[in-house]
């Protein structure tokens, strides 16, 4: 950086004149030059400190105020989904406020319609599923007991306590779910109220807020920060839109497939698969587990005469959903997302899961991509890679 400033400072008469205006005439030219460099460096440090303080306070508040992070994540998702529609209306001559309000109203109507259509069905299915859970637990334990007995007869004497392990695990997991449900609901109510509000103002004023933050960036890294801000923003937008589209398609295929098979709880299982699909790589597997478990243990899950054939059919529905996803959505999207190595993806998901549970898993990839982009840009800036050495 010093070398850069040195090369920036020069000794033309005009420049010396302006420097002497600042520092007085009684100092030598090299002293003036040093003072000038120090002044610019001080200004850059101050601006950088101000910028970091602003960013840290924004992220600090979002991370540490309970419920705010989730509200912000949803607000970002909503604003990325609705931004193209707002731009569309604005491009046709409407004011920004009206252009933002119209997609919100339309989305509100759509969501209200979906809720009136699907919520009663989903609630009924959830209720029925909840009543059935003890029975499923029991069936599952019977199955593990059968496996255990067979294994026991094979390994003679080496008794593996599979059923005991499985029962404690399954009871703790399903118990967790019903115990955490009220807390989850009250939290999601706050999120449901806050997220659209945040999203509305993000769409209305977000760009000017971004511009105000950029105004504090020191001159020597201004263009880099602007470019980085734009890249991260467009990559996140592409990522969010692709993920939501994927979720809708996977959920839709699963819903139609399970309905077609006459499988129970089709709506709730499809919603679960759609939400789980947001987690890269592992999500589709998680999403299929409940349906496979039901097909394995419950007579209701037996959609055809043969038990194993109905299991294969259910797995087939989930595979078909993934196949459509891989064939049509991923080719459209992959180019827009920073390439992360599969190992990096899995490690990011694990870190996300450890830090913030399911939400952490969902947001781990965009966060990892942003970190990669930022570190790449900083690295290139530090090394000042020249095009000759790069191309």
């Amino acid at each position: 950086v010093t070398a850069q400033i040195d090369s920036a400072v020069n000794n033309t008469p005009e420049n010396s004149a302006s420097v002497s205006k600042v520092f007085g005439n009684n100092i030598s030219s090299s002293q003036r030059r040093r003072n000038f460099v120090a002044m610019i460096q001080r200004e850059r440090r101050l601006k950088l400190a101000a910028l970091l303080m602003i960013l840290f306070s924004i992220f600090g508040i979002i991370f540490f105020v309970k419920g705010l992070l989730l509200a912000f994540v949803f607000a970002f998702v909503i604003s990325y989904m609705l931004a193209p529609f707002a731009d569309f209306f604005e491009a046709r001559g409407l004011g920004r406020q009206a252009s933002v309000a119209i997609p919100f109203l339309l989305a509100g109507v759509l969501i209200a319609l979906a809720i009136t259509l699907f919520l009663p069905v989903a609630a009924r299915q959830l209720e029925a599923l909840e009543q059935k859970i003890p029975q499923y637990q029991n069936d599952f334990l019977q199955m593990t007991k059968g496996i255990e007995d067979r294994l026991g007869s094979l390994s003679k004497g080496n008794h593996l306590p599979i059923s005991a392990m499985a029962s404690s695990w399954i009871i703790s997991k399903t118990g967790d779910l019903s115990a955490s449900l009220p807390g989850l609901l009250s939290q999601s109510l706050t999120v449901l109220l806050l997220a659209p509000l945040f999203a509305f103002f993000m769409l209305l004023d977000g760009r000017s807020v971004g511009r105000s933050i950029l105004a504090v960036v020191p001159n020597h890294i201004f263009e880099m920060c602007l470019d980085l801000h734009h890249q991260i923003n467009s990559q996140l937008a592409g990522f969010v839109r692709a993920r939501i589209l994927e979720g809708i398609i996977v959920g839709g295929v699963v819903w139609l497939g399970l309905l077609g098979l006459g499988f129970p709880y089709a709506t709730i299982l499809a919603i679960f698969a759609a939400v789980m699909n947001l987690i890269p790589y592992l999500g589709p597997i998680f999403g299929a587990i409940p349906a496979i478990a039901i097909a394995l243990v419950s007579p209701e899950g037996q959609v055809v005469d043969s038990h194993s054939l109905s299991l294969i059919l259910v797995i087939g529905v989930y595979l078909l959903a993934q196949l459509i996803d891989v064939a049509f959505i991923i080719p459209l999207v992959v180019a827009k997302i920073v390439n992360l190595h599969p190992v990096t993806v899995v490690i990011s998901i694990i870190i996300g899961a450890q830090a913030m549970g399911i939400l952490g898993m969902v947001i781990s990839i965009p966060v990892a991509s942003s970190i990669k982009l930022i570190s790449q840009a900083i690295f290139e800036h530090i090394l000042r890679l020249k095009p000759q050495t790069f191309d």
Partner: protein
Amino acid sequence: MNLLWENLFRKSRHEDVSRKALRENFLFQDLSSKELQFISELVHKRTYHSGETVFQQNDVGVGMYIVVAGRIEVFVSDPSAPESGAEGLFITQLSEGDFFGEIALVEDSGHRTATAIARDETTLLGFFRPDLTEVLARNPSAGSKIILRLAEVLGRRLKETTEKVSDLRKALKELGTPPPFEARK
């Protein structure tokens, strides 16, 4: 209360300065006052001390700058001419109303072909590729007017460069030296 009025007044004066600079600029001269207002909310106002670098040759360039106040000097680093000074070979000086760096508006991760250094306390208005994309998405009519003017500027530059190249080739021919490369058919 006075302070508030003063600040309000100052803000509007700054906006006026930006809008005036935009209105007088070749790229934005076709825009209506409503469109100019829209653009003036998008541009980035930057101030530089005398001697401070705006950008350096080979930096990744994202957009153009309009000189609102002060002066900018443009240099190209020339390793074959060590006598050219610390900044490189002096190319040109730009003053109020001039603009530079516009090629970066249409070039994806292109690199700056020269170094720009402020020569006074200088105020610039930055207009960058993300801003142009935003104008095209939100106000396509203004966007297309800007793009058309930008194409005109780049076309003119290309014409000037072609003329310069053919002049040089002619001069080389008169000197009896064979041209360094043949023109592509």
